[in-house]
């Protein structure tokens, strides 16, 4: 069976672990538990009638306390950049992490998701910023791990991109 390593990347407390847990076990917790190191989960999806096991590397959030180790990125078939719509700083972190990935392993498929759509009234990331990202070739989904919104889509779209590569994605940050 095909296995694909996917890294979950983003600033701290953006909801990476919540997205993985919602995707893998369909569970959500309102409590925040910071991830130290790496937690690896697996889930098999069907892409083009073929089973693909996604090996999800839920990396700790990037901040001044922890920097993502480039070695964790090696061997990744794709990655998901997670942002928190209520904190504009997480967009900056996502952009920096994207550059790190490109510098480390080159251009691989990725999808971004702006999490916490359930708090959209408090969002700091506005439509202009989203359009700017899309203008750079990013796939930007809006989702909520709490509501389960956009979760299947983000993993599904990335799996599809990995298995059936489309024309080379733009890699500019």
């Amino acid at each position, binding site marked *: 069976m095909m296995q694909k*390593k996917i890294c979950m990347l983003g600033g*701290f*407390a953006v909801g990476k672990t919540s997205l993985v847990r919602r995707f893998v076990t369909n569970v959500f917790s309102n409590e925040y538990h910071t991830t130290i*190191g790496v*937690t*690896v989960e697996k889930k098999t999806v069907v892409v083009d009638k073929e089973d693909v096991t996604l090996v999800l590397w839920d990396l700790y959030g990037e901040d001044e*306390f922890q920097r993502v180790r480039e070695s964790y990125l*090696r061997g990744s078939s794709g990655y998901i950049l997670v942002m928190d719509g209520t904190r504009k*700083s997480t967009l900056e972190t996502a952009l920096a992490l994207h550059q790190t990935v490109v510098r480390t392993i080159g251009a691989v498929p990725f999808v971004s998701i702006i999490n916490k759509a359930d708090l959209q009234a408090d969002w700091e990331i506005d439509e202009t910023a989203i359009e700017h990202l899309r203008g750079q070739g990013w796939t930007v989904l809006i989702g909520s791990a709490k509501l389960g919104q956009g979760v299947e889509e983000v993993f599904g779209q990335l799996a599809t991109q990995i298995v059936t590569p489309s024309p080379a994605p733009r890699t500019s940050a």
Partner: protein
Amino acid sequence: MTDAVSTPDSPDHALFSRVLSALDIVVFERDEESGAYRLHGASPEWWSQCVDPDHRATLDLSRCSPFLQDYLVGRHPAWEGNLGTIEKSGPWTESDQQGGSMTLEASLLSLGSRKLLLIECLGSSFEDMRSIVQRARERVLAEDLTAKLHRNTETQLIDQLEASERTKDEALTLLQHLGIAALVLDVGGLVTFASRRALEVLGITATDVIGQHWEQVLPLSQPDCVLIQSMLEGSSRMESGGPFCLQGPQARWLAVEIHRDLCHPSRHIMVLSDRTELHALRQALHEQASFHDLVGKSSAMLRVYQLVRDVAQVDTTVLIEGETGTGKELIARAIHSSSTRKHKPFIAANCAGLTDSILTSQLFGHKRGAFTGAIQDQQGLFEAAEGGTLFLDEIGDIPPQVQTALLRVLQEKEITRLGEAKPRKVNVRVVAATHHNLSEDVVRGSFRADLLYRIRIARVSLPPLRERREDIPLLAQSLLGTICASTGKTVERLNPDALRVLMSYSWPGNVRELRSAVEFAVISCKGNEVFPADLPPEIAGTPVGLSPSIFIPLSSQDEKTRLLAALSEAKGNRTEAAKRLGISRATFYRRLVELEIRPF
């Protein structure tokens, strides 16, 4: 552990196993040829939770965590001859067989040619570190949230401020557009804002106003300032007042309204309304409806006012004709007040009922000893009126001798006191009045024709009240106000029925009788409105609806009865009796003589 080979049965090996057991670490050695990982020593308890018991002695990578698989696949400097180098994988979380999880970390090192893999379960110190990071991040998130709330509050305040500024600008624009003259005063009465219209009204610039006390900005009289200050302090119940006269080269009249600023109760908004034009119009209206102390706006009275103005412009003798009580003396005073002699004396003399010697003495004065009782030199009325006006009422009643002397005075402009021979120059304007038809008197021979021609150079005829009934409401209301002011009673108006009665009455005593009737009514009135029952009985009984234009003169017998009744009611006091009848004392005397009534 050393590079020396320790066989399983050597003492070093036993020690090594005990040390590993104490450190709670799993140690594998990588076999370069097979690539297999062989366990050294006893494995700790936790390791049995991670692996199949049958595979504890070796590390089966295919059964390992993907993290460890991934980690061991790569190149590692620690295994490439860099002695002393220990390479750490970083922590990862591994599921155990009980459904829980544990956090592990792998370390790689070389001892000589031997490549070792150490796996440890991160315990309490790791949890402490995780807890610290967790708290730090929660704190960052909380501060983030606080900062965000502050930003939102700031944004809201800025929005509110902008909205407030917009509202202020709009209100200001509206204020300016509406042309409202407004001053905003602070607690100390200093002007903090002046609208454009206020500046226009006051004829000054903003720099002259802002920061100034309102009393400096509004040049008002002291009493007006006191009144407005009391309005500002709330001691006056009034919130508006005026119009007040702004003193200056061109007087302006302003109405002032005081409003308390609801947002800042210590501030006041003073709204100024320019009433100059309104005041001028009212003044003109008032002047049209009255003239000096005369009241009336009938066409007859308007003609009289104009005639008085015309007569006042010249310095000729004037004859005023009119029934008793029509206000002949008021006309005389109006002529005097409108003439260039207005700052000089106005002397009124009643010529009726006086003997020629008394009248001569009164008019021309006398020398001491000129007649019995002349104990000192006495100036006459002509001299007293020097430069001014002498009003001779009932001139038709003066004896022939006095007529002659008066004629000489009018011709020569000089008088001679009784008992003196030397004439004295006088500069007096004579205004005469009579209720007689002097032309008929001339025909009858009771009045000198030449004197008539001399005094009748200018003539003013006063209409009787019955011929200007439209003035009765105005007159009655005016008299009501005057009488109330003098008596202290508060009677505000005349009931329409009472007014109809007044309009229907014939008013033989004219305005004087009307005044007497209103005074009677004010005294009788119990409320604030005069009803027909409050009027004198002879008036209250007047049938309403009779043609008011027809004056039916009283017969001599009727008049005699009225005079006698009045004298009886006044207990013989002729002045009081005349007042009750609404006629002058002189007329009363004259009528007594004419009707041969002997005083009591």
